[in-house]
């Protein structure tokens, strides 16, 4: 199959790769770039585990092809922490509230929420639940995730 050159930035680093046009962005990130923090849960855009940010917007990397990301800026869970051995405010809030169990859905939830909190710095619980409603979690029952998001929002506001 004919290969196509894709040039994009991921977490601020530039990458250029030749890929099959049918290669999913999720597979490109995981296999070609080795960024396995982005998880694939359903491959049909429902579960949200593979959520990344494309030019800032939270999108499902299993629903777009790598070639569609050509020229765009991608952010993944690996880019969230300020440095190795550190956690971002959002990540720390998830640990502090026990907002994850198996952790498989967590990267997608973190990416969804990181975009959400940029749009709404002071959300209500209801707004948080709506923002999370496109991400499935089978372990937690969501309560601690909601708590984590509210705690992160509070800490981010206090630090602003």
């Amino acid at each position: 199959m004919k290969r196509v050159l894709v040039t994009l930035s991921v977490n601020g680093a530039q990458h250029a790769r030749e890929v099959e046009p049918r290669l999913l962005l999720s597979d490109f990130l995981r296999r070609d770039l080795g960024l396995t923090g982005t998880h694939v849960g359903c491959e049909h855009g429902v579960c949200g585990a593979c959520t990344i940010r494309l030019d800032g917007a939270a999108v499902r990397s299993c629903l777009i092809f790598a070639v569609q990301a050509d020229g765009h800026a991608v952010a993944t869970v690996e880019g969230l922490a300020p440095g190795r051995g550190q956690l971002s405010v959002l990540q720390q809030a998830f640990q502090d509230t026990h907002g994850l169990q198996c952790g498989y859905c967590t990267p997608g939830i973190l990416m969804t929420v990181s975009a959400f909190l940029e749009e709404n710095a002071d959300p209500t619980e209801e707004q948080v639940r709506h923002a999370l409603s496109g991400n499935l979690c089978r372990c937690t029952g969501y309560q601690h995730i909601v708590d984590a998001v509210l705690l992160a929002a509070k800490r981010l506001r206090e630090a602003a």
Partner: protein
Amino acid sequence: MTARHIGRPITRNEDPRLLTGRALFVDDVERPGLLHAAFLRSPHAHATILSVDTEAAKARPGVLAVITAEDLGDYWKPGPLLVPPPPIPGMTFRQRCQVPLARDVVRHVGEPVAMVIAESRYIAEDALGDIVAEYAPLPVVGDLEAALAPASPRVHADLADNIAAEVVQRKGDYAAARARAAHIVRRRFRYDRGASIPMETRGIVADWDAKADRLTVWDTTQAPVGIRNGLAAMLGLSERQVRVIAPFIGGGFGPKMMMFYPEEVLVPWIAMRLERPVKWIEDRLEHFFATTHERGQIHEAEIALDATGKILGVRDDFLMDTGAYNPYGLTVPLNSQCTLLNCYDVPAYESRFRAIYTNRTLVTPYRGAGRQHGVFVMERLLDAAARELGLDRVEIRRLNLIPPDAFPYRNEIIYQDFAPLTYDSGNYEPILDKALEAIGYGGFAEEKAKARAEGRCLGLGIVCYVEGTGIGPYEGARVRVQASGKVTLATGIGTQGQGHFTALAQVVAEQLGVDVRDVEVTTGDTDQFDWGVGTFASRGAVVAGSASHEAAKVVRSKILKAAAVHFECAEADLVLEDGKVAIAGVPEKHIALGALAQLANPLRGAVKPGTEPGLEATSYFGPEMGATAAGAHAMVIELDPQTMRPTILRYVVVHDCGTVLNPLILAGQIQGGVAQGIGNAFFEQLAWSEEGQLMNASLADYLLPTALDVPRMELHHTVTPSPLNPLGTKGAGEGGAIPVGALFAQAIEDALDLPAKGIEIAEIPLSPSRLWEIVHGGD
């Protein structure tokens, strides 16, 4: 000694890796030269395979192998039988285990027929489309009752009928109890199939290193040691030659305990044949067909009561859908049979079940593992009985609770661990009272009337449950103090999000006086620890936790002994805390644990006869029986009679799992269990066509609860420590999920005042459309 670490809400050691995308899941494993597997699966629920033509697939560039049953030679065989049936007199058990690749007949949609190995998963799936398989469809067995008819088609043609097992168990004399009953309430209940749907599907990577003469397998299993032992036996290797790693697993919930799945048999085999590493990751569509399901029972039950509402006996006769094969034996129906008696004193019980083969995916335990079916039947019978006797639904429960002085209480029915179930300890009435208080039971009638005046339909549910947890046979743990002063703990169980890296670290830290962050826990790597059974039946914290406790205690005594020699003092004068040993009252006289570990492992000199080097110990713990947890759930819903959509206004859980190791992790387990229970009660139902096709095999159609559907819960605990293990703890993994179906049924009846209209909820799962049918008729 007061607890320093046990019982504290310590945040998790494992979280930083998971939160930064650095935790290894099976699909993250990359190896040089990695190949990818894909499976051709049966499109029919029941058919004869006429031919499988793989030539075009083999010719596709990038394809290395296409394997059918014929290619497996002697390696093709059914099984193994994972759980043999327990010794119950008079029982029937007809074993028919799954096969690696179907040879002559396919018995459920999704059964593997051929395996393709290619340079990428994309090419492997292309090649699946090249395979031409011809089938002659056979009549399909789906409905459980129709499956019993003499004229029914048979799932296994060599059996006379579709009965996979028949078991009768008795306690007391039910016929005598019935004869003297003032009231007999008889009902029929249906509890349909669901699926566990962990966010990570199954997967396996196998890497045969010919030079090292070793096979390494990464597997999404809940039982890595069992997989290691089984693979060694199947592949003709010694156990030493096989390393199975269950790394971070994205949720298990039971179906990842099943072994061996066909893919687990085939991927290591082909990796050895090709001498190339091979990966297979289940996609979500495959998961719906190829990973085991649970539930699917029909009960005909009756309860006999005296004039006051005291239970004299219960009789139950149920059918259980076991799917096309039964490698997991009778765990699910036995759990239903035992747990039906719930937290009540039932002097007489007679229960028969028949497990039925159907042309559907296999049934194995999923969180709750049949216990919710038993609890549903008993709780629904009590609700109906209360109405018949004019009793309050709470009072009939209170009247029949096992009293606190009756423990250990003999349930007598043989349980999934093959022994007659005994409830080790419990105190049930305070649980019920706490739930009533927290949900506002006393003021609810008024609240309901007030809401009704505003045109709103409120309903309250309150139900009780027990859960047999922490069963044997055993788990083990090895604890070692390293020269760095950090402590390692290795155990054979797998972990799927339960917080073992933290809860087990707390148990060890408690004994050794170190920081919980300084205890590194390894689970699920047979090179680190290769004795163990697995993570299932709410047993990880209880059984592996107790083994960790025992091993840490031995290490503690070694530390004190070595320090006493070092300081030339009595052990009783030593204090072990903050990662060092000090002489009591002389804090400047101290030695760090790491330094002591080095002293205990000298490079010169002599280790005294009869002693061992290092500060290390391995211990095993095997409980004589499981510890029985208990609880009550209560909720208030508002039901919209136009849309039949319930909104949960309040949800209360009162749970007793003995000693709590970590309340933060426990809360997560309970909330997650309730969420799955809510899904099971109101969202999730596998919809089958007459032809045995699964009609909703996607997450867009099989609805899991979202953050909008699961309410904030109010959790309360009572503590009745178990006498069966040194920690006094009981399992908590499944309790949250068990009573939710019964709770929904009762609360919905209450909200719409259905019994007054002669309507009862006798089935789970419900949905808005099904509720409409029940209330308004039609289907």
